Structures are given as C-alpha cells and as structure tokens.
C-alpha cells in the first residue's frame, strides 16, 4: 500500500451518521474478482437514480465537490458488512483521508490496511469541519507524524491513532510480510498447541 504522511486535499462533507457499507458500495457491485475499479460505484444509490441518471442533489455530483480527496462524515462511519470493497471504492474514487467522530471496527481495520487514513475527531470538531467544508474548494492539511488536521484559517485539531497503525500507514507496510518475520513464533505456537509443524 501507498505510505501516507502529509496530505493536503479538498474536502467533501456528508452530514449523516451511521453511513453503512451497503451505502458506500451496494452489493450488486461486489461480484468483481479484482480489487480495482470500484470507485465508479461509490455511494451508487445516492449518486444515481434507478434509471442510472445522476441525482442532482447529491454532493459528489456537484462538479465543485466531485474531485474531493477528503471525506467528512457523521459518527459510526462504515457500519454493517465487512466488505473491503468499501475502502477499495473510496480509495479508487480518490479519497485518501476520512474524518468522522467514530468508525465501525471492521471498516476501520480495512481502511488502514489499504492505506486510507481514517481520522477520529471530536463531535464538535467534525461539526465545525462539516460547516466549513460546505463551501466548495475548502482544503485541509493532514499531518500523520504530528497527528494533526488544520486549515488555512486557524482550525487545528489533534487526533489519536494507535501507534502500530500509525507506523503501518507511515511506512506503507504489507502486513503479511511483517507477520512472516515472526514465523518462528507461529511455529512454536503450533508445536505447543497442535503438536505438529506446518512449515
């Protein structure tokens, strides 16, 4: 995955709580067997009506927001199904950073593993950003090393992130390779519990 540290991008607000993975990517698009190409389907039922026409009132259909790279949303973002197609679709569409007060656990893990930085800010901070970003062209600067989010007019917020996830994101590590460096411990566990060697 791509490492991420300092990142500046335009922001798109979706002021809803409990945005579930069925909304992020509806199930009719889960049938592909690749990881790429899901961006065109992100928020499909909000972007398009039943006949496939664009819904004018959805923010990503506004040309001034269509190219946003940072998404700000309400609490419990990504709840529901474990489909990793959700972060794949967000990333493929161009979102590298998400900001919300909280995330569903599985979605959060899936995001980190694909190099998406899911930032947790307080309700008030998110509220402020939802308001500020309703003006098109609003930009935020993210600094993962410093764990900060700031804009050009005095907004600055600190966010917490698990040190392990932070390291993974900063380095863009492939987790399986990291784990296999501990293979001797896996082997010891297997010998102790399963009484056998498997590699």
């Amino acid at each position, binding site marked *: 995955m791509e490492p991420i540290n300092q990142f500046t991008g335009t922001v798109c607000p979706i002021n809803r709580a409990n945005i579930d993975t069925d909304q992020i990517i509806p199930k009719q698009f889960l049938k592909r067997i690749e990881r790429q190409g899901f961006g065109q389907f992100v928020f499909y*039922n909000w972007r398009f009506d*039943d006949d496939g026409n664009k819904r004018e009132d959805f923010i990503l259909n506004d040309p001034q927001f269509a190219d946003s790279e940072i998404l700000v949303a*309400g609490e419990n973002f990504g709840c529901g*199904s474990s*489909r990793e197609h959700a972060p794949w679709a967000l990333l493929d569409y161009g979102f590298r950073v998400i900001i919300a007060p909280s995330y569903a656990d599985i979605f959060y893990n899936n995001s980190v593993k694909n190099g998406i930085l899911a930032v947790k800010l307080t309700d008030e901070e998110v509220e402020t950003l939802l308001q500020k970003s309703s003006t098109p062209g609003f930009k935020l600067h993210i600094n993962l090393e410093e764990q900060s989010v700031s804009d050009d007019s005095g907004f600055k917020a600190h966010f917490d992130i698990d040190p392990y996830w932070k390291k993974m994101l900063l380095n863009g590590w492939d987790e399986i390779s990291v784990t296999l460096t501990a293979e001797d411990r896996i082997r010891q*566990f297997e010998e102790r519990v399963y009484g056998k060697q498997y590699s």
Partner: protein
Amino acid sequence: MTKKTVIEKIWENHVVSREEGKPDLLYIDLHLVHEVTSPQAFEGLRMNGRRVRRPDLTYATMDHNVPTINRHIVNDPISKTQMETLKQNCREFGIELADIDHPDQGIVHVIGPQLGLTQPGKTIVCGDSHTSTHGAFGALAFGIGTSEVEHVLATQTIWQKKPKTLQIKVNGKLGFGVQAKDIILAIIAKFGVNAGTGYVMEFTGEAIRSLSMEERMTICNMSIEAGARAGLVSPDVTTVEYLRGRRYAPQGEEFEKAAKTWLALASDEGAEYDKTLEIDTAEIEPQMTWGTNPSMGSGISGVVPSPDNFEREADKESVRHALEYMGLESGTKLTEIPVDYVFIGSCTNSRLSDLRAAAEVAKGRKVQDHVTAIVVPGSQTVKQQAEAEGLDQIFINAGFEWRESGCSMCLAMNDDIVPPGKRCASTSNRNFEGRQGSGARTHLVSPSMAAAAAVMGRFTDVRELAGVNQ
C-alpha cells in the same frame, strides 16, 4: 487466581506473540470462506507465491450468490464467475468446499455449527460480519475484511488489539410469543447501533441460559448490528449436548475430554467486565423495525416515531431520511403497515426451530393474495430435516414458496430481490437502504412475526393469532 471472562480465557489461549506498542498476534482455529470476499485474497496469495498455511483449518462454501430456484441457472455471468473462481481456488489451495451440489451446502454461519466445526474456545474468522453467530458456542468469532482473509490464509494468524468486554445481561424469563430475535432487536433498539463498538459482548442472564443453541445463534448473529465485532455466550450443558455426535466434533472419549475443557471456559463467577448493560425481559414484546438501521425499531404495539422525538440534530436528520425512504408517516401504528413481501431465511433465522416457529403460524392459514412470501432454509440439511417433518407442505399449502438454501433475499445478490418501493417483512438482520433491492423497504422481525405478516397482509402482533402457542 484472578477471575476471568470467557473472552479473556480464549484470548490468552491464542496469543502467538505479544509486544509492547503492538496488537497481539492471535492464532486462528477455524477460517470459513465464501465466494464474495475471498477472490482477491487468493489472488494476493498467487501474486506473492504464498500458500495456505492450514488448509485443514479452512472450510469453504458458496452461499451469497447461489440461486434458490432453478439451482443451476445462474443468470448473472459475474456471479457465475465468482462461484467458479471459488471452486478453482479451493482446488488449487487444497481447501474443503461444500459447493452448490454438496449435501452440506448452506449459509456459512448455518453450516459451521451444524457440522460441528464451530466449537467452544475456538478463534473463528470469516470474511463476513455475521461471523459473530458462532459466538453462541463460546467461541471468539468475528468478521474480517479481504486483506485479513489473505493474511489468515497465509499465516493462520491475525493482529488484534485486545478488545474491551461488555456484558449484556438479560434478566427474567421470556414472555409469551417473544423469540430470540425480539431480544436482540430490543437490545439494539435500547442501546443503539454502536453500543458495542470496540467491545466484545458476552450475553448473560437467566433469559440467555434458557435459550437453545439455535436461539443463542440468532442473538450472537446480530451483535455486529450493535457494533460489536464479536458476541458470545459462555458454554454450558446446552452447548455440549448440541455438539455431541456432530461430524467434525471430537468423538467418544475425546468428546468427554473436550467437553470438560469447554465447560471450564465459561466466565468465572464475579469476573469483571469493562461495561455492563442490562435489559429486563418484561420490557420485551415482539419487535419490528420501522427505519433504515436495526436500532430504529420498537415493540409491535408502538407507532412510527416523529423526528422530533429525538434530541440530537444528527438523529433527527437520520430519522427524517429513514421515514422518507420507508414511505412512512409519523404516528402510524406499526400494525397498520401493510406488507408486499415476506422473507423467512438468512443466517439469523433460517434454522429448523425458526422454520418450525413460522410453520406453526402458517399452518391452516393462507398468505394474502397481494403478498409474495418465500421460505429459504439455511442449509441443505435444514431443508431435508424440515421436509422430513412436513414443514415444506405446511408452507406450500399456505401459499409460501419453498426454496433451496442460500443467503437469498437477505442481501439480494442473486435473483431474489424486493422491487423498488415494496415493503418486506424479513427475518434477516439488516434493514439498510437498498439491502434487499434498490428502493426496497425492509422491516426486521422474528420468524413467527414474519409468518403472521404474510397471512394477515400487514404487520400483526403474533400473540393475537389464535392457536399460536409458544
């Protein structure tokens, strides 16, 4: 000795590596695989020249896409590719597969327990959020994403931060006409869809102890709808007796030995939890959801609420949006809402006892003419057992369709779809927008409430139907 919860005991038994500043590396005892969330994981293995470390601990089936009528006509070429891909991957990597023709085929969370693969004390993962179902056995079972599927295939381990523990205590005895589904819906309505985020839940209390294994599965199945990746019940005699004689469970003397270990895993009396929530069964009547997430629900005697009943602006907005999507007016009695479709099935409610409960209501009654009602058993085995008892005939005589096993209308990835604007009484677990079809309106209920809705043509308090004795 410090007192421990079942969650802590299982966790400590599976730590492969623990280091400061890192999550724990946990060993996985059972990895279940299905066709939708696995293709990219196998592809990842191939690209990196990796193999599956423990094919013997991996078991696959196809359930999400499979047709439930005309079993072999998969109309959607992409669904077909996905099923074919799973077959090839299992062959290539040496994984046992219950494919569409196999007598063990079924919804992954129905067949794991049925085959005895699911056992107390195991760590179980699957690329599916309802893996929490297996927690009913006192296993630590949770859903994972595709990158994690690949990770488990390659290493048989997973990095996990030790979760906080949440006890959900259900006090009292279940009232007449109240089913396991009503307990979990009531819990979610009371505590919200993220009450369990960051936690593993353990369900305790008198009401839980008295439940059968199938009922416990219904409850643990929906822990994820309350935000908890895993939900479990401490093993007890009910657990042990369910597993006795199952094909993949230990046999003979080995079984007795295992049973002792399993029972010892139960949470110690007086063990502490990070948080405890309580609910009294006196509060729980048959439930039904009216909105677009599982917490938007209430007892059947309730009405559709008004956005003004909610305090926070974000909630008001969600409710407004939900009512618009659901085509409902505030103040409408739930029992006045008509239904067009009824779906009895899914990993929440497609086991034999669920079908029996629904059949009891359907028996001698007729599905209303304007209602399409389908019953989809959770597995081929459930289907056969139900047929041996004549449940299929009861359903067919009442005007229900009797189908082959699979996920079906729970997520409508095959041809079982609720049309736009139509209203469905569903025994599944998610009432999200578009879940059962674009524009489809889902109301979550128990199997007997679903059957009652079918025969009455509107949502009905099942306790009011004569001859229903539970």
